[in-house]
């Protein structure tokens, strides 16, 4: 332990860093006071200098984070006025068309926020829009992570937390828009109860316990309120904190480029540039949310009216992040099994329970499945360009296509009306698309990725066509090709491409022992999956980059160069 006179740490001492300006006494004294108590100087030195890589796609997660902050701020304001009650009141507020109507306290207080509290409507609008932006940003961020392979070791934990955040975000959003107890949200809850009832064995018990009895249950809105403003946000906040701390500790991934390796980070220091930019970006996100909320109406519950179990609005649509489940419910054929006095409702169970279950489980498992299939257990800090991993990219696009089909199917009544197609025809089309489009998307994406890869390899090796035509001494005309700049080639990340699979271990090794693995069924599955993730016909990575341009073109020996496009179907 060192003992020091108060204020001694602010004393002038020549800096031991030549070329660095000594910091003012006051700053040193202030920092010293804090450091004496918390030992923060080392932490600050390290973390203020932390380098953050920069790319627009790294901003998607920031949008999600900042929308969450906006949700906390606007949501807190709303709780000051919202009453999560199911007691019946007669509306006497400012909105004349509904005056004198019987409604629950929850709906009446939502109307009060919208029409009687100054600025209440704008905060409600901001809250709802921010929720939509939050979910959209999470999905976009998740796609960025998936398509760039940023979920690979060492970041699997953060991927799992991310999957948790997506599912909790869905729940939180659904709980939120169900609270006002308007006709639309009541219909949504009725459907949710119907789905819970369809779960075999425990369904009716689960429904009764969650809702406090039969639908709608007098306890349900207050319970949903606690879930929406306390339980789920607390979990979300803790998970987001963990997500950020892990990201900070592991350091961000970066795109390939000059000077960038798997072992370094290239970008701007956290302080001040990154800090100011991300702070500015919070305000920018908030500004866009406020502008949309001021100009575009969202969830006008006063037009829907209070919930009434005898009524339903035509063209009822959930928020977009629930829409895919609505679509899957709509397009599912009406299968039901009756066994020994019991009913299993496949028509509800499969689209609303099994399908999301499979999706989220598959998402959570994906990093481990991919590592197992590709036998790649190394740590990766360089983002994959989607084209450089055609199998993974194609899989992602196929899943997105499937979700897109489901989402559109959720609005089939609107599409049917708008485009004058028979309602039943739209359902049939979506049922067909559900099975046909994802494989097509898979194949097309894979081909496109391989094509883009080939073009990259070609232009890295040959350079680009300058458009300059030169006549050679022998009278031959050639177009001069010029080498691409080094950094352009480096950004292609050609050395990080998915290669062909490693050779299988021989059926009989050098000691004459037969391989156990060769015939195991699970290894066959692994090999088959590998056929999709690996590129059997991919080019080998080039030796160095950009070296071949011009030289061979000018001496006319083009054909003698090592053939670079050796694909079987080339």
């Amino acid at each position, binding site marked *: 332990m060192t003992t020091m006179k108060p204020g001694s740490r602010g004393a002038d001492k020549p800096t031991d*860093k030549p*070329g*660095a300006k000594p910091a003012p006494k006051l700053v040193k004294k202030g920092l010293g006071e804090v450091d004496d108590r918390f030992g923060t100087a080392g932490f600050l*030195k*390290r973390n203020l200098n932390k*380098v953050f890589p920069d790319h627009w796609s790294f901003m998607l997660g920031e949008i999600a984070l900042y929308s969450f902050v906006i949700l906390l701020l606007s949501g807190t304001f709303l709780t000051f006025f919202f009453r999560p009650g199911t007691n019946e009141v007669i509306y006497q507020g*400012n*909105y*004349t068309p509904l005056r004198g109507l019987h409604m629950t306290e929850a709906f009446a207080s939502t109307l009060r926020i919208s029409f009687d509290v*100054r*600025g209440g*409507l704008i905060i409600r609008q901001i809250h709802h829009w921010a929720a939509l932006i939050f979910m959209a940003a999470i999905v976009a961020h998740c796609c960025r992570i998936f398509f760039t392979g940023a979920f690979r070791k060492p970041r699997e934990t953060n991927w799992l937390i991310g999957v948790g955040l997506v599912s909790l975000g869905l729940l939180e959003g659904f709980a939120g828009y169900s609270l006002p107890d308007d006709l639309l949200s009541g219909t949504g809850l009725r*459907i949710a109860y*119907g789905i819970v*009832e*369809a779960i075999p064995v425990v*369904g*009716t018990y689960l429904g009764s316990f*969650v809702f406090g*009895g*039969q*639908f709608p249950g*007098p306890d349900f809105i207050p319970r949903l309120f606690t879930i929406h403003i306390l339980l789920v946000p607390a979990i979300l906040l803790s998970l987001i904190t963990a997500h950020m701390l892990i990201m900070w500790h592991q*350091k961000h991934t970066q795109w390939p480029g000059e*000077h960038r390796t798997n*072992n370094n*980070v*290239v970008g*701007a*220091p956290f302080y*001040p540039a990154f800090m*100011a*930019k991300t*702070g*500015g*970006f919070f*305000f*920018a*996100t*908030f*500004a866009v949310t406020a*502008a949309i909320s*001021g*100009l575009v109406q969202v969830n006008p519950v006063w037009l829907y009216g209070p919930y009434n179990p*005898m009524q*339903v609005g*035509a*063209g*009822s649509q959930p928020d977009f992040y629930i829409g895919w489940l609505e679509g899957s*419910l*709509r397009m599912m054929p*009406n299968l*039901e099994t*009756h066994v020994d006095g*019991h009913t299993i*409702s496949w*028509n*509800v169970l499969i689209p609303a329970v099994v399908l999301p279950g499979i999706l989220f489980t598959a998402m959570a498992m994906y990093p481990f499945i991919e590592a197992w299939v590709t036998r790649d257990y190394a740590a990766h800090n360089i983002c994959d360009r989607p084209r450089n991993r055609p199998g993974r990219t194609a899989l992602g696009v196929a899943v997105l296509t499937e979700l897109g089909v489901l989402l559109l199917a959720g609005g089939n009544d609107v599409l049917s009306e708008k485009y004058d197609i028979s309602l*039943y025809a739209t359902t049939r089309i979506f049922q067909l698309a559900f099975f046909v489009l994802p494989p097509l998307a898979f194949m097309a994406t894979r081909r496109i990725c391989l094509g883009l890869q080939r073009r990259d390899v070609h232009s890295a090796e040959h350079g680009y066509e300058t458009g300059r035509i030169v006549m050679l001494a022998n009278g031959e005309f050639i177009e001069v090709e010029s080498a691409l700049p080094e950094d352009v080639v*480096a950004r292609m990340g050609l050395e990080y491409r998915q290669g062909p699979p490693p050779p299988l271990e021989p059926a009989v090794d050098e000691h004459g022992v037969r391989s156990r693995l060769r015939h195991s069924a699970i290894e066959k599955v692994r090999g088959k999956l590998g056929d999709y993730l690996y590129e059997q016909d991919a080019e080998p990575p080039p030796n160095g980059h950009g070296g071949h341009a011009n030289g061979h073109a000018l001496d006319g020996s083009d054909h003698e160069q090592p053939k670079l496009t050796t694909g079987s179907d080339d």
Partner: protein
Amino acid sequence: MSDHVPTESGGSLDLPDADVGSPVRPPIIERVIRPQDADPKRADRAERWIALMFLASAAGTVAFVVFYLAIPSLHTIGQVHASNVLLGCSLAVSLGGLGAGMIAWVRWLMPAHESVQERHELAASDDDLETAAQVIMAGLEETGLARRSLLKRSLGLAMGLFALPAVLLLRDLGPLPRKSLDTTLWKKGSLLLNAETGEPVKLGDLEIGSFTTVLPLKVDDPLMNEEELSKAPVLLIRLEPGLNKPAPGREGWDFEGHVAYSKICTHVGCPIGLYQKQSHKLLCPCHQSTFDVPRACKVVFGPAARALPQLPISVNSNGEFVATAGFDQPVGPSFFERS
């Protein structure tokens, strides 16, 4: 790509073009010189633009306060609308000015150099790993859990039982479902009351091809709580005479072309709101399950698996519609206990 020598933080890197800027900052790998870095006049102009954005933000904030105070209380829908647009837009200017100004400040005036930093190896040395594993094992040894099986088992029992109260406390979240899903308020002799007016529906009230929603009790009846109201709605439909084809065993459940079916969809429980007069089909607006009314409301399209339950009806001496019995099956979505 050149070789990197891992260095202590703040040290320089063995890069051909590494450029040690400030010795206390991460080494700069690529200097970016923009026009404003070379020309102070341009930098000053950038500063003025940024200041303008901050001033716009301040003006937006003032505008927000003015708009808030200028509309002291909201009376008409027009005022609410105007208030929403003005508050939203002024807030957007206030926040947007700050955001744009800060981002422009970073991008235009702060150095744009690319810095580089080594990633620290996340994994510890094998020695450290070995030591950590040994510490864990040594501690486990100290607890004696491995040797003392009585301790281990009794602790396991105590901890395991501890979960019970937590689960048990959730028991009163709701009643057991029992038969609540099987029953409705409809019983023999229930009048078919118009859901809007609460008056009994009489023979002749409905035109051919029209329908109405009916309830067994008035909406404000004490027995008619929200739970019952969610199961009770029935559609009374008047078909053209002779059109109805009663299902076997349901002869006499209709009365002079009038039929009554539960309004609650057998898919996931939405109220069925759409009746297609020409084709005599009921369509659930939620998931488009379609029921053929003259053929016992069988499902002809959509995800619902069961026909709508039928309510047998007749007319009493006053010419009012009455139920001749309750429903013979549960209404609404299927559930596991349902046969």
